């Protein structure tokens, strides 16, 4: 199921990373109307002073000015471009390199500078909900990957059950599915546990002897 749409941003906190404060006056004003607090992290040597570890995806939103040169070192999930909190790009110079930089930071919505008040709710709505959607898709992909890896155990468990109970593959699968539900596990996890439990005892451990003993034997 797709995540529910967030529509009320009251209590949120926007970190606006920019050096052109006049371009974001309307952004600041409109965020206030929407119940979103605003902070302007200081820029030191081109880097914004933000405690990235303290950001909370439920509360914080990053507005990053694309005209600045890499002002925030976000820990981005490279495959999915998923930042830790929603990122909304502030677009000044509309050059591909600048836009690519914002995409690489995981921006899920954009606002043109100077920001117009009428565009802010849409950008927040889009940016935050796209962030939630991407996070949800990421989680679903991870789940699919895990299940794909567990497929081998399912095949083995079906064959084992067929041999053990003298049933066909459909019946074996049904039984495994029912048992997995009964034990409140995914089918894959249950089949892995099933195969592990059925595995025979390991071979006797080999006793290593001192080297000279081996030499004596020669």
């Amino acid at each position, binding site marked *: 199921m797709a995540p*529910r*749409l*967030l*529509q*009320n*941003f*009251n209590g949120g906190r926007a970190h606006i990373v920019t050096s052109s404060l006049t371009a974001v006056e*309307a952004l600041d*004003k*409109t965020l*206030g*109307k*929407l*119940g979103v607090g605003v902070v302007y992290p200081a820029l030191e040597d081109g880097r914004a002073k933000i405690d990235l570890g303290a950001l909370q995806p439920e509360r914080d939103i990053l507005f990053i000015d694309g005209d600045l040169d890499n002002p925030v070192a976000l820990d981005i999930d490279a495959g999915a471009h998923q930042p830790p909190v929603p990122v909304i790009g502030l677009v000044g110079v509309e050059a591909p390199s600048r836009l690519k930089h914002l995409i690489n930071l995981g921006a899920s919505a954009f606002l043109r500078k100077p920001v*117009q*008040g*009428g565009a802010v*709710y849409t950008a927040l709505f889009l940016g935050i909900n796209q962030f939630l959607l991407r996070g949800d898709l990421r989680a679903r992909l991870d789940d699919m990957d895990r299940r794909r890896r567990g497929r081998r155990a399912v095949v083995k468990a079906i064959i084992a059950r067929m041999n053990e109970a003298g049933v066909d593959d459909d019946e074996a699968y049904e039984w495994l599915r029912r048992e997995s539900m009964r034990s409140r596990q995914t089918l894959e996890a249950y089949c892995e546990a099933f195969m592990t439990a059925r595995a025979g005892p390991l071979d006797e451990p080999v006793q290593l002897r001192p080297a000279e003993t081996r030499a004596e034997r020669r």
Partner: protein
Amino acid sequence: MSKHFRIGVMFSTTGPYSVVPRSMLNGALLAVAERPAPGITIEPVIVNPGGDLARYAALSREMLRDGIRHVVGCYTSSSRKEVIPCFEKHDALLWYPSHYEGFESSNNVIYTGASPNQHVLPLVDHALATLGSSAFCVGSNYIWAWENTRIFREAMTARGARVLAERYVAVGDTEIDQVVEAILEARPDFVFNNLIGTSNSAFFRAFRAACVARGIDQPRAIPVLSCTLSEPELEEIGTEAVDGHLSSSVYFSSLTSPANDAFTRFYAETFPDGPATSADAEASYIAMKLLILSLAETGTDDVEAVKEAATRQHLLAPQGEVRIDPQTLHAYLTPRIGISNAQSRFDLLVEAPGPVRPDPYLVQSSPRYAVAARNSSLRVVK
């Protein structure tokens, strides 16, 4: 020497929803006709888009190019949204005097009508406390009804109540029988109505007639609740079906206060042919009044100066104290719920103790997440 200001006044006084805008025009002109503010004279420049959406932007452009900086006008939300880009481009100010669905706050608009936290949310609470927990929604097929119904539905769902169905008809459509049949089949505890204009009066007449034919005491069995219903619309419905309808509004002409007595008396004297005064007429009066006071205070029609001056005004309006919230440029207004009587007026049922802060984005009162439209389809099978 007094300064002369030309003010645009733009209402569709002809067309499919002309009754309320005619009362709005009267309200705005009443403020001009009242004892003028010292040091200024006001010349209203009246235009009529005739309910044609395309005419609004063209007329706005003409007025603004002609040097007018302030326009009191628009009734429907679609017309307001149509003209806002024009006001933003020319950096002029629209004084929008009607209750609306919120989720907007242009820096080039002063909103003197009610925000959703001042009309629809009080109505939901009142309905659930007194009428029941299932509603059938009807509305005109445009942004006002869509959004107001969404806000209503989310508020209902959040309180554990149910919306049984939603039906929309085109603006101006009076073929309403199918909607009436659907309501009678669903038998909700009440109807939430967002119809406007001729569709609205056609609905009230058809619904009452269908109920009478079935022996249903409509006002008590399936009452109709609106945020749009005002006195001029009651007069349009006609005597057969006019009584027993609930309306959530910041103003009723029957309010008893010296300010409202003076307002209604002056209105009746100035416009003896009607239409009756209404919440939107009062909002238009408030808009023009605030504008005139701000022009008198600043001595200029510069938009920034007037806007700032407007947020400093405290007006003793017919509904009570009114002021503009500097953050949202929406008005502090007093929510009320009334029930219509046979004289096409409202009897006051409940009212807030004082003006309520506008919350156009419902940041203080709406659920954080959008509520799913349907209730769960899961049911117990064993």
